[in-house]
């Protein structure tokens, strides 16, 4: 049982994710909530659900960090980080040694290069177009009149490589409709669109440099066909996470944990210093009635590794 817990919330364009970490950085519970669009109601549901799943209450949460497209809308967040930092932190924790994180969410896609110390080295993001993002697959599913959960299997069964533009999600939908009108097989269209997205993602990777240890995060990582096409395009295997959508929220929870722990160390140190100095002071001046609250001369912060204080210390 941990003494304290932290909360990470990733408010994306289509889903809200919440993760609770314990004081050792273990993932206690995580939740993904589907939303129609970014909403405070959605993030509230995700937080409530993760608290319920973990058996914790808000009072157990000592620090909250938000991330994602809607990070500024997260209630009670102590701080925000970008999804780049959070996905990197989460991915490194889930797969130590990872060198490249490919995060494809509902609205944007990113390639994040990780330095050997686990920190972000460089990143690249898609431009304004939604091509290559989760939204792109929604468009595909609608045009093919299949459920979004079916597009991956459909793509894996495709055999023909059709030419599909990867430059614009809107125009891609038009292209898909044209291909259907020409009698192309749905499976071949789906496969071609996936190849196109893989190609576009490869462009992002080229901006940060290809690496060997690759992890994919974000909702699109659950699309096995895309992972396969992208892996083929990269020429390297892509590791899969159990819950790739939670990586960002978990990273946020870990950052909250790191920050709280470092603050706790400082608070403990301060408290211990005060206790030791109070003891020392009391032994020197057993009669405090005349004390004005100031101590002349240096005061040592004993054995705590803190810098010595060379000025009067007020009101011990």
């Amino acid at each position, binding site marked *: 049982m941990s003494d304290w817990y932290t*909360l990470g919330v990733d408010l994306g364009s289509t889903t809200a994710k919440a993760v609770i970490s314990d004081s050792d950085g273990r993932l206690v519970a995580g939740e993904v909530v589907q939303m129609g669009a970014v909403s*405070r109601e959605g993030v509230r549901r995700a937080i409530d659900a993760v608290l319920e799943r973990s058996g914790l209450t*808000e*009072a157990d*949460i*000592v620090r*909250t960090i*938000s991330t994602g*497209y809607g990070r*500024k*809308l*997260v*209630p*009670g*967040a102590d701080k925000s*980080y*970008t*999804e*780049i*930092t959070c996905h990197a932190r989460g991915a490194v924790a889930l797969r130590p040694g990872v060198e490249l994180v490919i995060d494809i969410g509902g609205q944007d896609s990113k390639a994040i290069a990780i*330095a050997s*110390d686990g*920190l*972000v*080295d*460089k*990143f*690249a*993001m898609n*431009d*304004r177009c939604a091509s290559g993002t989760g939204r792109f697959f929604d468009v595909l599913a609608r045009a093919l009149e299949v459920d979004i959960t079916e597009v991956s299997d459909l793509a894996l069964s495709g055999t023909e490589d059709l030419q599909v533009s990867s430059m614009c999600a809107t125009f891609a939908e038009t292209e898909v409709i044209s291909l259907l009108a020409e009698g192309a097989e749905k499976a071949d269209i789906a496969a071609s669109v996936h190849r196109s997205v893989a190609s576009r993602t490869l462009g992002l990777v080229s*901006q940060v440099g290809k690496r060997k240890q690759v992890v994919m995060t974000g909702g699109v990582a659950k699309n096995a066909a895309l992972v396969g096409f992208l892996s083929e395009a990269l020429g390297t295997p892509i590791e899969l996470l159990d819950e790739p959508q939670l990586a960002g929220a978990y990273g946020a929870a870990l950052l909250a944990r790191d920050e709280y722990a470092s603050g706790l160390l400082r608070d403990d140190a301060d408290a211990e210093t005060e206790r030791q100095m109070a003891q020392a002071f009391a032994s020197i001046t057993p009669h405090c009635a005349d004390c004005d609250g100031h101590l002349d001369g240096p005061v040592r912060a004993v054995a705590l590794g803190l810098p010595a204080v060379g000025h009067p210390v007020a009101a011990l």
Partner: protein
Amino acid sequence: MPVEVAEKPATENKFNRMSITSVAGKMAADYWEDIFTARERGKHIVWYNGSALNPVFQAAGLGWCHGEAFSARLAAQHLEVPAQQAGEEYGYLGELCSYSRTHLGCAVLTKRNLYDQSQSVVGEDDARELAAKLPAPDFFVNAYAGCSTGQQWDAMTYRVFDKKLPLFNVSLPMLWGNKPDSGYLVGEEFESASAYVAEQMKDMISFIESQTGTPFDWDALSENMTYIKRASELRLEAMALCAAAPTPATYWDWVASIAPINFMPANQALVDYFAGMKAEIEQRIRDGVPAVQNERYRFYFDGIMNWNKLGWLSRKFAEYDVAVIAGRYTHDAFWQEPDLIDPSDPLLGMAKNYLICPINSGLGVMKELLLRRIDEYGIDGIAFHSTRTCRVMTNPQQILARTAERERGTKSFFFEGDVADASFYRDDLLETRLIATLEAIDAQRVRAA
């Protein structure tokens, strides 16, 4: 854990704009008012693009209209849309350089027989206002370095005006830097290209004489270049003072000061402006007044300015304690090598300054200059403005980003936008990339500590 909904706090403006830039605004307004009425005062009018040929035009007694400058002005005033609509209506593609699209739209409106209000999407008042502003040209001069659109721009305007007005082209060769002795300001390629351009400028002056019927005033050109040289020296001295930390002035102040050095008349007022800028910077240093409150990051800006967003960007970067100090657009352009100018025999020095336009150099020189600026100003990060309709400025940016990272460990990010078309830009995308870069710089600092 509190459960109240987090609201974005009202943002304080932490950018401390230099007060003298308001003088530049007044100078620019006066300049344009003067151009708008130049024909009424009997002046010949030249429309031109690219290099700062204005000292020549001034010596020839012309009224001169720099197309990019007028487009930038419209964009900065958020008045560019009707002109762009007119350009697109005429047939120019939406992805054509938005400087040229805006200016060509003005040309279409100015050439009234091309414009039928009953069939136009451009509002009547907007059309009338824009058409009434710029006086139609008597002739064109083009001297565009590096950019193929720029080199064709005046030819397009020439066609808008029925191919009936004279057009003179000055060819500025790209400084590829391929020869073994090539480098910044040195080498056979640079010397031969400079001589080639200077010879063309003599022909251009003969062309102007033939158009105006008036002998060219070479003494006036020497006088103009004396003012330009001194103004440029003061500008560079003032820029160098911004190596101080915190910086007393920012890239945004230099952007706001482009108009005077780029196309306004060469005179004592120009020199006084940059003397005043230097004095204000010196005063700020003496008083400990920073350009950005709590400066924690020092940035370089690569890309042409997004004129629609000058104020917003200056505040946005400052909000995150980022002082944007220098940039390729401001620091590697606009008479940036005054030592090359000999006012008594100015053409060769002018040609050299035109050639070292920041989009006209090979990658070797671009890398050298970028690294120099990083070192001079203690740059922590770079914002690359991926200017959507300016291919020439954006083409080398990925390589420059890699060079900065590899050679100096300097982090960078890219954001899309444009020089004069706000539709290519989104605030939230810039903000996310900026914050992510600051987080990466913080991580870098932790690592180094």
